C-alpha cells in the first residue's frame, strides 16, 4: 500500500515561514481531513503534497520517492488536485470541463474510449450527467463545485487532494458529494481534504490532522483525535462534543478561549 507523507516538511512563502517540520502520513483507501484555523497552513501542506510548492526543508514523499522528483505527467496522473474556489475562465460546457481531467492521459491523437468512459463515469458519480452540455456560466455554485470535482475524478488519480471541496455546497449536496469522496477512498484511492466544518470532518474522515501555526497539533483516527481537548487547543476554543440519537458525532464550539 502506497503512502503519501510529509517528512519534516518546512515551507516559506514570500519570506514568511508557513510550515515548520511537518510530519504527517496519509494512507491509501482512507479519507484524511486537514483541520485547523485560518492561516494554519492547511492549503500550503496540500499544495506541497501535490508537488506544487517547493519546500525549503524536508519533502513530500509518494511511496518511496520525492513527489517533486516525479516527471510532471506522472505526477499529474497519480495525484489529482482540486484547488480552493477554483475559477473556470471560459464558458466551456460541463463535459468539456470534466474532459480536462483527462489531459494528463491524453496521447497525441486525441480522445480514446477510455477517456470518454472516465468522463461519463465521473459525470454520473457526481450527479452531473444531466448537465453535460450546460455551459459552466449557467451552473449554480453547487453544480459548479460538483463539476470541478468530476474533473479531478475523471483523471482516476491514486490520490485525490481537494481544498475545501464541500465549502459552497448545501447540506444535502455536502452529504452526497461526501459520500462520493468516501466511495473514491473505498475504491482504493487516498483522499486528503481541507475541511472547515468540524462536523463534516467527523462524519467523512477516517483520519484527521490538526494543524496550527504551521505545525501539527495532533494526527490520528478521527474518532480518537477529534476530542474536545485537542480541537479546543487547535482552534483556541471551548468545544462540546456528543453523539446524536442516530449515532453521529457532533462538535459544537461554545466560546473562544484566547
Amino acid at each position: 500500500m502506497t503512502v503519501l507523507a510529509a517528512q519534516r516538511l518546512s515551507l516559506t512563502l514570500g519570506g514568511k515561514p508557513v510550515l515548520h517540520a511537518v510530519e504527517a502520513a496519509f494512507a491509501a483507501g482512507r479519507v484524511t481531513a486537514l483541520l485547523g484555523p485560518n492561516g494554519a497552513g492547511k492549503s500550503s501542506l496540500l499544495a506541497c503534497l501535490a508537488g506544487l510548492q517547493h519546500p525549503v526543508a524536508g519533502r513530500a514523499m509518494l511511496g518511496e520517492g520525492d513527489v517533486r522528483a516525479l516527471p510532471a505527467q506522472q505526477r499529474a496522473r497519480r495525484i489529482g488536485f482540486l484547488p480552493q474556489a477554483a475559477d473556470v475562465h471560459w464558458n466551456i460546457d460541463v463535459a468539456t470541463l470534466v474532459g480536462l481531467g483527462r489531459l494528463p492521459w491524453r496521447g497525441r491523437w486525441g480522445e480514446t474510449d477510455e477517456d470518454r468512459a472516465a468522463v461519463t463515469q465521473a459525470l454520473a458519480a457526481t450527479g452531473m450527467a444531466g448537465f453535460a452540455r450546460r455551459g459552466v456560466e449557467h451552473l449554480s455554485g453547487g453544480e459548479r463545485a460538483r463539476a470541478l470535482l468530476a474533473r479531478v475524478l475523471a483523471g482516476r488519480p491514486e490520490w485525490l487532494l481537494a481544498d475545501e471541496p464541500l465549502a459552497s455546497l448545501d447540506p444535502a449536496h455536502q452529504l452526497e458529494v461526501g459520500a462520493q469522496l468516501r466511495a473514491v477512498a473505498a475504491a482504493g484511492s487516498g483522499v486528503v481534504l481541507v475541511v472547515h466544518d468540524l462536523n463534516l470532518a467527523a462524519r467523512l474522515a477516517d483520519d484527521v490532522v490538526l494543524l496550527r501555526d504551521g505545525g501539527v497539533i495532533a494526527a490520528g483516527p478521527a474518532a480518537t483525535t477529534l476530542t474536545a481537548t485537542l480541537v479546543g487547543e487547535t482552534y483556541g476554543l471551548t468545544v462540546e462534543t456528543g453523539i446524536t440519537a442516530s449515532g453521529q458525532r457532533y462538535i459544537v464550539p461554545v466560546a473562544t478561549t484566547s
Partner: protein
Amino acid sequence: MTRLSWWLLAGVLLAAALSLAAGKVWVPLDAWTAADPRSIIIVELRLPRTILALAVGAGLGVSGAAMQGYLRNPLADPGLFGVSSGAAFGAVCALYFGYAVQAWLLPGFALAGAAATMAALALIAGRSGSLILFTLAGMILTSITGSLTALAISLAPTPFVASEIVTWLMGALTDRSWDDVRVAVPLIAAGIALLARTGRSLDALTLGEQAARSMGVDPRRLQLAVIAGIALAVGASVAAAGIIGFVGLIVPHLVRPFAGHRPSATLLPSALGGALLLTVADCVVRLAPTVSELRLGIAMSMLGGPFFFYLLVSMRRRLA
C-alpha cells in the same frame, strides 16, 4: 478540422481569389497564365500582397486567440495592449538609424520589440490572470512605446525619414513585394506553429494556474512559447504591414462560441478567420472610392473600435 474551420477555409480561398482580381484595375483570374500584359499586376503586385494579407491576418488572429487564452482575458489583443506598439517602436528604431537597408534588420528589431512588450505583459499579468492588472499594464506599455516612437519621429534627421515612419506606422499592404513575403511569411509561420502547440496547456489554464500545474503544465515553458510565438507572429506582421489592430480581438471573439469556448479549439479557426478578415478588408480599402488608398490599419481601427465598445457594453455586468 471542424466544420467551422472548413467553412472558414472556403471563405479564405474565395477572399484570396477576390484579392487577386480586385483593385483599380480588375484583372480576370485567367489572365496570369497567358501571355497577358496584365499578368504582371497579378504576379508582381497582387499575389505578394494577397499572401501577406493572409499571413499577417492569420498571425494576428492566432496571436489574439493565444493571448486571450494565456491571459484568460477575452479583451486581450496584441494591437490594443502594447505588443504591436512595441514591435512598431523596434521597427521605427531600425528606420530611424537607417538600418532598414538590410532586409532582415527591420523585422529583427520589430521582433525584439514585440518580445519585450509581450514578456513584460506576461510577467506582470500572466500568472494571476487578473483583468485589471493586465489592462493597466497594457495601457502603460502602449503609452510608453507610443511616446518613444513619437520621440523618434520628432528627432528624425530629415523630414523624409519622419514621413517614412509616419506612413509606415499607419499600417498598410500597399506596394509590398516578394522580398517582404520572403522575410515575413516564414517568421509568421514559425510563430503560428509555436502557438498552435500551446493548445493543450491553454485548455488546462482554463482552471487557473495552480490547477494547470497540477495537470502537468510547465508554466515557464508555456510562457516562453507564448512570448516567442506572439513575438514572431506579431513582430513579423508589424514589420511587413505596420500596426493593424483589432484583428486579434475580433476574430477569436467571433469564432469562440462555435468552438465551444475552448481555448485550443479557437486557435486554428482564429488563424483562418484572421486571414479571411484581413484579406477582405484589404480588398475593401483598395476598392473604396477615396482619392488616395485608405490605409488598412486605419480601416481596421474604424471597424474594431466600435466592436471593442460593443464587447465592453455586453460584458459590463461581468466586468463590474
